[in-house]
């Protein structure tokens, strides 16, 4: 049975790199839209004469309160997508080395560490949203987040993987200088 190669040009890594490239572009567009929405939200909150400035999304909230809720949610989405963008960006760089057939590139250690920090960031954003949500009026307050053991486990796994790659990079360097 023919098996698909995992590394090198035309391999599974190559396919995943293409997928990550597309996701990266998509995330850039989403980030730009969120940034523009945030900016407009701030302007609309202070200037009721702007179109859509008099929001009536939440019952019992005046437009300023409604904008506060929307802005907090937009900011949350922005921070979350920015975290995902950083992770995808580093994954693209890692997969570029896998596509080139060079998995133990020394830079991959730092890239994996950034991915771990990014994953932790996404979790922390969830908790921050909940804390911030407690300050919002009741209809807009988000639900209490559950502690995701899977997410923190993933963070630790990626930290360990980064060290595995460090060892791989060291062995590669040794092999290069073995004559």
């Amino acid at each position, binding site marked *: 049975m023919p098996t698909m190669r995992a590394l090198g040009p035309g391999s599974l890594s190559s396919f995943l790199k293409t997928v990550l490239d597309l996701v990266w572009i998509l995330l850039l567009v989403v980030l730009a839209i969120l940034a523009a929405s945030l900016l407009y939200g701030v302007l609309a909150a202070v200037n009721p004469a702007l179109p859509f400035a008099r929001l009536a999304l939440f019952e019992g909230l005046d437009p300023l309160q409604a904008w506060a809720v929307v802005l907090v949610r937009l900011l949350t989405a922005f921070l979350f997508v920015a975290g995902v963008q950083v992770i995808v960006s580093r994954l693209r760089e890692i997969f570029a080395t896998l596509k080139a057939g060079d998995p133990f590139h020394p830079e991959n250690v730092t890239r994996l560490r950034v991915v771990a920090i990014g994953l932790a960031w996404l979790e922390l954003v969830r908790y921050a949203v909940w804390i911030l949500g407690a300050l919002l009026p009741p209809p807009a307050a988000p639900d209490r987040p559950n502690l995701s053991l899977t997410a923190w486990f993933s963070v630790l796994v990626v930290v360990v993987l980064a060290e595995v790659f460090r060892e791989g990079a060291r062995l590669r*360097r*040794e092999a290069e*200088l*073995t*004559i």
Partner: protein
Amino acid sequence: MPIRVTLDRLLVQRRMSLAELADRTGLTAANLAILKDGEARALRFSTLEALCRELDCEPGDLLSREPEERRA
């Protein structure tokens, strides 16, 4: 690395250039330069055998141990 490859001394004694040794052993000149400059981390038996064969020497003639204080 306290172990030093004394390739430069043997090349002078045999009146042989690095390029000629590379040609005769099948090793690249770049790898031989790494050996000569003391940047190599390890030496394969096959490399050692090829060098000894072409330089007509024993492994002990190619390697020397530098005292710790002479390093760095």
